[in-house]
């Protein structure tokens, strides 16, 4: 039975359709797996396994009658703990939302439920998705299934670790500056950061609203295509969602990539890149060439400014988004324990001082500074102009290339604790992923190999605006020709 947890969504869906397995059997296998490995991985903040069992029984009935709702009907999913789930705690891994129970579902949660997916629970993240390691979680870090002394990456580290350890069949994450791609790379799973606005953000806890995106973390590119078909599309509740008619993302699977043009931006292969990572990505590109793609070096000169630009805007938007946590309407409040307060302003101070973690406080203070009168032009406005330059560079690059390929991270998973007290080095680690969000384009992390120490390395495939299909074509061709994504950690 245990083996069912290892199935991909695509495989499980076919077995469910054929009546070879039931949703309840699949769920039992995943629950058994969670019981076995969760003490080592610590991916989950909240498990909802009893509800899951009821959902699976209903799914069984649907399959029995041939009334299954979609390809994810009966498929167990884990949600990063920033997606609002009606009646189930949504903490954003923060003490300030420790007891917050939403009265409604995020649009994507609603879509997954209507498609029949089975909700296993909520998984770990850095507090308010701010971080690259899950160490900023108020509930403790998750562990990398490939080496439990190392971080799973972040902020969607719980999602990536849970998929990698077969504690779910797929997960949803969010990506503001690499938070889907970097943990996917560190844990050897396939994660997609979508075009800004492709998936609704309604009901999802915000970090930096002009960068935030939602996407799948899965065991294969084929699974990503299946999940994307369920979650993508316009939502009247999120006015920034795209209105274009979207393709069937599965139609990009199984394609010949002969003649596809790949750009290799040299700025991503410079100083600071681990030689082993460099070698693995270069050999992945050679593999794509052997499949008929054409690759050449090119340049995205503004890349060097991306980190500074990204963090100034992200922290500015974050300080504004986190202003809503005031101890009055929901979340942590000194009013709950009847502590003595010297008026309203004292409530604000006590709430925020007592319940925000270090990185949230740093973000709020940095954003408050960069938006304050006298500094606004120097920081925020300059950064917004540099953003325009970066966006133009990507637009221009995609006039010539189908996709661009880079390493996801300059190095593999680092040790827990290694960077925690050095925020600058933690920020600089995001060098390869942060330029993509300001440009608004999609990018995928695809398992590309392992270092000599056995740590996973991911390849970043970047596509044009709404070019998820182009990425899927290349990534799927790569996975049909390689087996990196099939390897499993020993736990």
């Amino acid at each position, binding site marked *: 039975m245990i083996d069912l947890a290892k199935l991909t969504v695509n495989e499980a869906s076919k077995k469910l359709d054929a009546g070879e397995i039931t949703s309840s059997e699949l769920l039992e296998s995943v629950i058994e797996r969670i019981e076995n490995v969760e003490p080592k991985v610590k991916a989950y903040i909240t498990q909802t396994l009893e509800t899951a069992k009821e959902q699976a029984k209903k799914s069984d009935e649907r399959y029995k009658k041939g009334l299954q709702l979609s390809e994810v009907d009966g498929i167990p999913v884990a949600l990063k703990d920033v997606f609002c789930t009606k009646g189930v705690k949504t903490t954003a891994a923060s003490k300030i939302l420790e007891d917050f129970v939403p*009265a409604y579902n995020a649009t994507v949660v609603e879509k997954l439920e209507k498609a029949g997916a089975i909700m296993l629970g909520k998984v770990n993240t850095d507090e308010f998705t701010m971080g690259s390691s899950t160490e900023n979680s108020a509930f403790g870090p998750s562990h990398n299934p490939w080496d439990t002394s190392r971080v799973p990456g972040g902020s969607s580290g719980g999602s990536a670790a849970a998929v990698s350890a077969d504690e779910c069949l797929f997960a949803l994450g969010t990506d503001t500056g690499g938070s889907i791609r970097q943990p996917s790379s560190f844990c050897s799973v396939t994660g997609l950061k979508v075009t800004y606005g492709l998936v609704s953000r309604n009901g999802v806890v915000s970090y930096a609203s002009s960068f935030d995106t939602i996407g799948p973390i899965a065991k294969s590119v084929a699974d990503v295509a299946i999940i994307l078909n369920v979650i993508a599309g316009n939502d009247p509740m999120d006015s920034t969602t795209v209105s274009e008619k979207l393709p069937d993302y599965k139609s990009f699977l199984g394609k010949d990539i002969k003649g596809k043009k790949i750009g290799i931006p040299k700025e991503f292969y410079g100083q600071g890149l681990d030689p082993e990572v460099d070698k693995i990505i270069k050999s992945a590109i050679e593999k794509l060439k052997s499949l008929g793609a054409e690759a050449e070096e090119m340049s995205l000169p503004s890349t060097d*400014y991306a980190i*500074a630009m990204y963090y100034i805007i992200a922290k500015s938007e974050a300080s504004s988004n986190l202003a809503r946590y005031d101890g009055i309407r929901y979340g942590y409040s000194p009013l709950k324990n009847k502590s003595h307060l010297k008026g*309203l302003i004292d409530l604000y101070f006590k709430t925020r001082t007592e319940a925000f973690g270090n990185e949230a406080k740093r973000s709020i*203070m940095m954003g408050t500074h960069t938006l304050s009168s006298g500094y606004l032009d120097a920081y925020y406005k300059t950064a917004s102009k540099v953003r325009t330059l970066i966006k133009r560079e990507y637009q221009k690059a995609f006039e010539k290339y189908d996709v661009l390929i880079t390493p996801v991270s300059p190095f593999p998973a680092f040790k827990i604790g290694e960077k925690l007290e050095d925020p*600058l080095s933690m920020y600089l680690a995001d060098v390869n992923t942060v330029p993509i969000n300001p440009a608004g384009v999609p990018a995928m992390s695809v398992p590309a190999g392992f270092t000599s120490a056995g740590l996973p390395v991911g390849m970043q495939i970047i596509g044009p605006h709404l070019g998820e299909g182009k990425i899927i074509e290349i990534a799927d061709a790569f996975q049909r020709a390689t087996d990196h994504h099939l390897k499993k950690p020993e736990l």
Partner: protein
Amino acid sequence: MLDVAQLARIELSDAEEEKFAGQLSAVLENFELLNEVDTSNAEPTAQVTGLTNVFRDDKIQNVNDEKTRDEFLANVPEIENGAIKVPGVFND
């Protein structure tokens, strides 16, 4: 540092003030390299996909029954007569 913390409604201990000041100045110093960039030719971007205002009709979409109301109010720390209670702005 204390000015910013005050604006952000966050209280810092002496140790925190020293730690955060060091960390944030390291970050902001590093970010000064943006001043090297020639941005004379670029307008600021705030919305990357180029959408402008998106409107919808101003009408009630979900019927606001008592149950929904109670679910929302369940998260509120202090309620009086069905209204959210806030400490005084001026008094102690």
